[in-house]
């Protein structure tokens, strides 16, 4: 066929050109020498850069560990905060509060986010998908303090009370884009042939998505949720006017609730030496939690990965 001839002659031209270039390259020893030098220089500098960028993290970890480790003992986890001046006590209310708020945020944002992610990957080219993707992008860029204010205006004010619930809404909105994007990206990697296999057995579309596509991408989705959790675990600003904080143990989600980040904020800005120590302890706990969540996320991504 005509076009095949054209392609052939084009390819020949290309090959000839390359040959000519190569020849002028090969004869020149100096060239090779400098190329090697550049290679080594480039490699050393990128290694150097990556070491420089992890130094701050190490310093922070080391500092927080040094400051916080003395505050941590058994009581730290199981006791309630003591009034100023009284020795001992713990931060159990803040730990429980943080976990409750994370749980509520996840319950809200996981179904919404996974559903939206499915939509975006299934209807990649629809107008609505384009709009949704744009909004998700913007949502990701909204400052966390704004999320807090919004939750205050829309939830705290109408309900007339600060609450863990309103805090969870603010944090859920921050988790949402992470989960949506992760789900979408994961689902896009699922080969089309898998869906076809299911549909060709007479399995309806929705069952194909729920029973074939989702289970095959579970590792990516769970990883996304964990990364989302790691992202919100230490957020303070969205909780300032929502969960508000609470010196007592509170399990009622419609009442003010303490969280690790709020406790750190309140204690670190107080004038008391003792409270500073507890704030460092809580920081250490929070950092370890985030680190651990990330490690689990990596583990899940590897271990549960489905081979096609």
């Amino acid at each position, binding site marked *: 066929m005509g076009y095949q001839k054209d392609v052939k002659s084009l390819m020949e031209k290309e090959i000839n050109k390359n040959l000519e270039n190569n020849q002028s390259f090969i004869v020149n020893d100096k060239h090779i020498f400098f190329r090697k030098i550049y290679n080594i220089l480039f490699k050393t500098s990128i290694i150097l850069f990556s070491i420089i960028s992890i130094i701050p993290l190490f310093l922070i970890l080391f500092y927080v560990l040094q400051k916080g480790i003395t505050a941590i003992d058994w009581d730290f986890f199981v006791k309630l905060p003591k009034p100023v001046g009284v020795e001992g006590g713990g931060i159990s209310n803040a730990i429980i509060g943080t976990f409750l708020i994370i749980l509520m945020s996840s319950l809200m944002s996981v179904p919404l986010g996974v559903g939206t992610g499915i939509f975006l990957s299934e209807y990649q080219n629809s107008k609505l998908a384009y709009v949704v993707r744009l909004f998700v992008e913007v949502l990701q860029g909204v400052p966390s303090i704004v999320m807090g204010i919004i939750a205050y205006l829309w939830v705290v004010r109408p309900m007339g009370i600060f609450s863990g619930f309103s805090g969870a809404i603010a944090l859920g909105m921050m988790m949402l884009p992470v989960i949506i994007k992760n789900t979408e990206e994961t689902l896009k990697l699922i080969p089309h*042939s898998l869906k*076809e*296999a299911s*549909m*060709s*057995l*007479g*399995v309806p579309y929705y069952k194909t998505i729920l029973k074939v596509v989702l289970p*095959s991408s579970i590792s990516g989705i769970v990883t996304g949720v964990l990364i989302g959790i790691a992202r919100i675990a230490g957020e303070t600003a969205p909780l300032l006017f929502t969960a508000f904080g609470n010196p007592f143990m509170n399990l009622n989600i419609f009442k003010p609730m303490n969280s690790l980040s709020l406790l750190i904020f309140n204690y670190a800005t107080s004038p008391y030496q003792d409270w500073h120590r507890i704030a460092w302890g809580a920081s250490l706990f929070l950092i370890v939690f985030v680190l651990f969540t990330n490690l689990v996320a990596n583990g899940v991504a590897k271990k549960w990965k489905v081979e*096609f």
Partner: protein
Amino acid sequence: MESRVLEIKDFSMYYGDTKAVDNISMDVYKNKVTAIMGPSGCGKTTLLRSINRMHELVADTRTTGEIRLYDTEIHSISPIVLRRKIGMVFQRPNPFPTMSIYDNVIAGYKLNGIRLKRADRDIIVEDSLKKAALWEEVKDKLHRKGTFLSGGQQQRLCVARALAMKPEILLLDEPTSALDPKATTKIESLIEELKIYVTMVLVTHNMSQAARVSDYTAFLFLGELVEYGQTQKMFTTPEDKRTEEYLTGKFG
């Protein structure tokens, strides 16, 4: 005479404005292998996928004409019901990666939420794997993942998965094109053996494969059915000049 399972009548299929299958009429006979042959892009896959309405997964497609399974027009019933009667094996083996070999075979029931007794399930799995000539190789590792198998074994697993639904027709779209020669031979002899259970429509690029395994051959060219008839006759005394040219390797 042969009894007819499928009747394709004046059937055309469009992707948007492009006609990929052009006014095709042909019959498919019971317990026979019908090969669809032709150069790349002539509409073989499109025609095959129209038979179990898998083309509907592609947006903006349109068909005219009729396809009848026995006496039912396939567009008059739900695609879900239709696809349980007309199974499909794809170009690349595609077992469900999250499922064991056992669950892959029974997947059509499981995913559809059809409940079966344990004993019935066992029977279907064993029976289907035996028909797909895979039983001996996997009977000791039914609960391992299907994706651990070799490419050829995976393809036979996919055949077993389709057979488990007890289909009237099995559609095969170049089922050996991703396999090595040895695995290909296995699939080919499998197709021969399966004839007693199921009617098959086989798309193939490979002329000698069509000659080896099929009873009837359809030759498609640019979306049109150029020639259709008994394989033996078509390969020895083709009626159309284009068929002859294709068979002698002048194009394609």
